[in-house]
């Protein structure tokens, strides 16, 4: 089997609110798949359907070859889940929770557990109520990474982790990838997905808007370029794919569609290029493009930033 998760046309409503509205998602076995979307887009709802906590209203959902609602218990032996907001039992220590969750899955690797507790700098003796948000997150992460499972589903797993721990987390994801495990990683932090994921699915308002490898998605974005030239770059705006040209004496700022970088740079060289910096497209920009479609978020954000 090559598909770990296969969702098509998933619909889930809460009363009058349609949280998921025909969502599609395919995760291949062995890949690290980023699941991106702004807050409220439906990431958590999708994951909770996958975990058999919510019953789908319509659509097909297949998880590890089974039905996530009907075969929940059998499937759950083979996967580990890290919720977005981890809450622990106030009277149980972190170490107890890690062991319990591992035993309730397919067992836990004691060596890997000890190593992870160390790497994440977790005090396993503290009781649930004494942990900060980040430390609660670490408890769930250690339990997930140390469990003997084939699929990891993580809902915004790094929220609450400090940068050092985020790096440790990325390291762990890489190790899991090398072991051939499949990971679904939801996030609204794009750099995290860029650094860790093979493929990405972007959703908005309960619908899938884009899916593919990062390379495939980059063609949708623009590289931003700053350059200094000897002669005024008057003809730059006429080149296909060049946008938002701002000239200030010999300095020029512009954006260019990724596939048109060559002609633009050749033109600048012909004017006597003194310096050139370019920034690769970020997923932030990709993301903003999908916001623009909704007609609300960017306008509001821009207006607020302007004040």
């Amino acid at each position: 089997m090559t598909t770990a998760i296969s969702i098509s046309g998933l619909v889930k409503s809460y009363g009058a609110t349609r949280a998921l509205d025909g969502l599609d998602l395919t995760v291949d076995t062995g890949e690290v798949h980023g699941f991106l979307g702004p807050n409220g887009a439906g990431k958590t709802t999708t994951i909770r359907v996958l975990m058999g906590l919510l019953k789908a209203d319509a659509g097909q959902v297949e998880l590890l070859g089974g039905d996530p609602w009907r075969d929940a218990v059998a499937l759950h032996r083979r996967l580990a889940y890290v919720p977005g907001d981890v809450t622990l039992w106030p009277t149980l220590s972190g170490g107890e929770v890690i062991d319990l969750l591992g035993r309730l899955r397919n067992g836990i690797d004691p060596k890997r557990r000890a190593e992870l507790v160390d790497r994440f700098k977790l005090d396993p003796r503290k009781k649930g109520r004494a942990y900060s948000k980040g430390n609660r997150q670490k408890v769930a992460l250690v339990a997930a990474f140390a469990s003997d499972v084939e699929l990891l589903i993580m809902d915004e797993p790094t929220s609450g982790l400090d940068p050092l721990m985020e790096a440790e987390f990325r390291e762990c994801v890489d190790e899991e990838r090398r072991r051939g495990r499949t990971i679904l990683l939801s996030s609204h932090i794009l750099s995290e997905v860029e650094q860790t994921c093979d493929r990405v699915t972007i959703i908005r308002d309960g619908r899938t808007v884009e899916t593919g490898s990062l390379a495939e998605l980059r063609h949708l974005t623009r590289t931003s370029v700053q350059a200094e030239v000897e002669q005024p770059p008057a003809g730059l705006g006429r080149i296909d794919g060049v946008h938002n040209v701002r000239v200030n004496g010999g300095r020029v700022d512009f954006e260019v569609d990724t596939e048109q970088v060559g002609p633009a740079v050749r033109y600048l060289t012909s004017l006597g290029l003194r310096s050139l910096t370019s920034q690769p497209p970020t997923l932030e920009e990709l993301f903003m493009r999908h916001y623009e479609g909704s007609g609300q978020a960017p306008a509001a954000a821009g207006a607020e930033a302007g004040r």
Partner: protein
Amino acid sequence: MKETTGTGTLLRLALRLDRIRATVWVLALSIFTVASSASNFDVYGTPQQRAELAASVETSPALLALGGRAFDLTTVGGVTAYQMVAFTTTLIGLMSILLVVRHTRAEEESGRVELVGSAVVGRHAWLASSLLLAVGVNLAIALLVALGLIGIGLPVTGSLAFAAGCAACGIIFALIAGVAAQLTESARAATGIASAVLGLSYLLRAAGDAATATADNALSVLTWLSPIGWAELLRPYTDESWWVLLLFAAAGVALYAVMSVLAARRDIGAGVLPPRLGAPAASPALRSSTALAWRLQRGTLIGWALGFIVVGAAFGGVAQGMVTVAGQNPDVADLIRDFGGAGSNVDNFIAAIASLMGIVIGAYAVQATLRLRGEEAEHRLDMLLSTAVERLRWVGGHVTVAVLGTAVVLTAAGLAAGLAHGLRSGDVGGEVPRVLGATLAQAPAVWVLVGVCVLLFGLAPRYSIVGWGVLFVVLVIGQFGKILQLDQWVLNLSPFTHVPDLPAADFTATPLLVLVLVGAALTAVGMAGVHRRDIA
């Protein structure tokens, strides 16, 4: 920024959050108090009826312990004070404790205090706003109670004293909860500490009041050690001792001072008592959802069992006294028969206390079963059900703990009462099984409450808290049903009505079997609901 900056805003927030809950408490407590008092005009309307009551009560330690201090039963007001003051003030105390802990330590535990604390809010604003809300709610109850009691025709001065006692007692327990909330990091533990003080206050006044029936009444001073006792000693409707309010005021100032000192000395999220560390790894036994349910619930169960060893021993110890008192006075026998049954006076008394303890142990059952909802509402269930734990197995774990736990607490109560009674009557071997049988016979009725809670959790999870309302109705029917002369069909609504009055009546298995089946059916329907619904 002052320490209390933002109190007004937080008070409005608390009012908004509590608008339904607080309204229900205020209306339920005041209407219940006034309605019960009004019924005294019917039941004890004539001097003859009141004289009969006085003859029974004033010589009976048990009736004084169950009701309250009886200063003057020749007036309807005096009867009302005897019957209602201790009961109403205890419930108001409970309400105040739950309210204050919910708005202080529980908020802190959830992390919301930190969130709001980053806005312009002084470090004592949470505490101040919660206490102001508690004071407001208590004053609202007092106002309604005073107006209601005056409205049904009781004397104005006495009604004001009754209401003042209610509000003062409620505020004292709000402050006690405020202190408890500074001590521990967990809301559950804070509620536990404050409730233990409430329970002790009730027992102290029960012991002190019971002692007034005996010739040597030195122990009656115990009532003075209890805020609930102070509300009685205000003597509503009988030469009111207004100066007792000074005791409330002094205690209030002292508690407030202690609370302020404690609050100033600790960090947000921390308690004055240091948190204890746990085990670095789980014991081999912690490997199933049922083992987890037991682990989460065992502390509560042990607390209830220990508490009922004390309560059972206290009730068992006074049972033998019923022989002499009731032998001299046929009216006591009548009254006890209302609660108990048609046997000897001692047996009737044992049947009555077994039923009362059964209903109170119903609170354990409701608390243990509603853990289900707590686990879901606090989102711990997501991670648990994402492992290979079947939903119904998880529900079954908690239900098993509630069902067996009920039997354990009833056994503790029955053994303690049987031993105490057996030692007094000189027949330990004979009395222990009889009294134990009487308390264990309550188990099927308590299990019906478990079933009601599972049903609510399965079909209407957001309304699981209604389980407590059902318990309250059962308590009112059990405590006041016969005194209020409610119709039989109303009495039949309570499962405890159907339990045979052991050891006063003969054992009949049929009603107990029916209760077991009803409880099982409710549980099954609730579980079917859990099986098919979304997890919140």
